[in-house]
């Protein structure tokens, strides 16, 4: 499915369904932040410079 079509499909969901996705996205962000993965990537990037 193309990105515009996917976005249109997501946009057409009910507010409640979209909020459930929003909460999952937030959980994922929190999990990534807590895991330290992002810091490791940033450190690796710094080492490249």
């Amino acid at each position, binding site marked *: 499915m193309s990105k515009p079509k996917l976005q249109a499909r997501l*946009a057409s969901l009910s*507010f409640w369904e979209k*909020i459930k*996705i*929003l909460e*999952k996205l*937030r*959980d994922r962000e929190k999990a990534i932040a807590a895991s330290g993965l992002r810091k490791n990537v940033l450190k690796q990037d710094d080492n490249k410079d």
Partner: protein
Amino acid sequence: MMRRLAENGFVKATFETINNMQADGVIANYAIGGAVGATFYLAPAATIDLDVFFIFPADSSGLLVTLAPIYEHLKARGGKVQDEYIVLSGWPVQFLLPSDALESEAIAEAVNTTVEGVPTRVMTAEHLVAIALKTGRAKDYTRILQFLEQGAVDRQKLNRILERHKLSERWKQFETRFLEGGVR
């Protein structure tokens, strides 16, 4: 232990808390703005907080306006203050008084909706775009582009709001910078 995704419902619980605060007379009216408000119209995009624009009841206005009544009310019900946020049901919520006529109008003209039976109010798409234009951070411009690309804005209604709040010139600058040859 991490909460399972299927057990979510933070936003709905937060809406209930805000409605209770309104019923108790702590706030008079409110509207959801920011990224959660935009989600009413657009595909969901990650956000960390919930922006609630509100007004106090008319009889509580004084020379000194503080958020203390809100914080006291919510702290007594389990809310935790964290920097400029108060954490409700796990979500950082920012309570914002309208800073100008545009934001006051956005609260007054917000759309009534429900989330699984819980009533709430969300700013119109056009007010969200106008406020994003006024705020003018990179993420605000990104959001405006999403509204335009997804055809979620009534351009005539938006133009009237921009004119009324003297944002037309800023919109022209935005168009020149981001829309030349693109979405119209």
